[in-house]
């Protein structure tokens, strides 16, 4: 039996933290893309499409992420797609973050005064150009602090991927615990590493919010 020094544990956890960060990045990038598409539909003219997006958001916000993960993991094979833990986690967290991001951004877009829509329409801009040229540039400023705040939630959520067997930081901690019988040290350390990833984001979100509140442009 090999002995694990404290440094061995820390090193292995930090190596696994790469996967936590990568999964967060993929879920955020994918979620931002789909979230934007959903936002365009959500603010658009078709009522049934708007309702569908609303239900989609409600579904993700009112069910446990763990269940969503299991459904993707056990459901995709029925569609003939062979899923690894990696793929299931990436797909699921992407859908999850697209739902939350759409909702956050909808709030920002709805805060833009009605006159901006009317004004840009009177200039002959159609819906997509209105969004692109007039509404979104203004809404972005407002949307950034809560978006960064959501990133914290997303990084924490990746810990659930450990349950379907994806080897990110929490899963690695479980394996290390089984090998070393030092759960106190290991889970304590894992918590600190997550904190080190999330706290700067929390601070940034709060700072941005304050700057926005004081009207810094």
């Amino acid at each position, binding site marked *: 039996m090999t002995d694990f020094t404290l440094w061995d544990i820390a090193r292995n956890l930090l190596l696994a933290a790469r996967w936590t960060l990568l999964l967060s990045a993929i879920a955020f990038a994918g979620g931002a893309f789909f979230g934007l598409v959903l936002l365009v539909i959500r603010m658009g003219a078709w009522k049934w499409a708007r309702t569908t997006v609303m239900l989609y958001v409600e579904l993700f916000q009112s*069910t446990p992420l763990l269940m969503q993960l299991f459904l993707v993991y056990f459901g995709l094979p029925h569609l003939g797609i062979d899923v690894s833990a990696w793929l299931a986690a990436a797909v699921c967290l992407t859908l999850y973050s697209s739902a939350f991001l759409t909702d956050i951004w909808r709030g920002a877009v709805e805060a833009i005064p009605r006159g901006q829509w009317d004004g840009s329409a009177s200039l002959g801009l159609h819906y997509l150009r209105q969004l692109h040229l007039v509404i979104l540039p203004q809404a972005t400023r407002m949307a950034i602090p809560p978006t960064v705040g959501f990133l*914290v939630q997303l990084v924490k959520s990746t810990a659930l991927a450990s349950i379907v067997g994806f080897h990110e930081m*929490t899963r690695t901690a479980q394996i290390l615990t089984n090998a070393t019988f030092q759960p106190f040290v290991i889970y304590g350390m894992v918590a600190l590493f997550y904190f080190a990833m999330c706290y700067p984001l929390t601070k940034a979100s709060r700072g941005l919010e304050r700057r926005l509140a004081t009207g810094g442009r």
Partner: protein
Amino acid sequence: MGYQLDFGALVQYLGLFLHGTAVTLGLTAVASVVGVVLGIAGAAASSSRYVWVRRLIAGYVELIRNTPFIVQMFFIFFGLPSVGLRLTALQAAALAMTINLTAYAIEIIRAGLEAVPKGQGEAARSMGLRVLPVFGLIVLPQALANVYPALVGQITITMLESAVVSQIAVVDLTHVADYIQSRNFRSFETYLVITLIYLVLAVLMRRMLAFAGRGLFAGRAR
């Protein structure tokens, strides 16, 4: 594809479903009641005149809010026994959920307290009320009325996040799903049904708590 969805295989487990639902709701109820009470205490104490009290509370809130719930729970259930605190899975789950919700409740209620105009407290003081009644009868009810929707949201999130307690073998709704799908191999159907139960619980809980809030804070919210 030859696979047919079959939900009929789930009917025989009705009793288990009910048991799991009861455990999930019970844990949520304990965490909510204790979490909100501690949240009020924490929020009140974060305007304490002692710097170390404020720092302690801020540190606690930040630590909990910036680490995953599952890691907090593993630390409590697997980590604490090595320093002599041995808890059953159910106790560990309840404790983890309470600790987690408390941190968010402190933050939410603190925001509510800050939004109550200073004049409210001052006026009550000038009527001769002592510090505690001023807080309990005048300031706190207004603060809670203002942030009640946020609290309801957070309680719902706690309920949904509690799915994770199945990982330390608490027999909640998710654990019931794990058990059933390991017997009938109908994993997709089982998890789909359980997900729908969570969905119904979440929607009902929000509705009922909002309804209760309308009675509780009638005319107070602004």
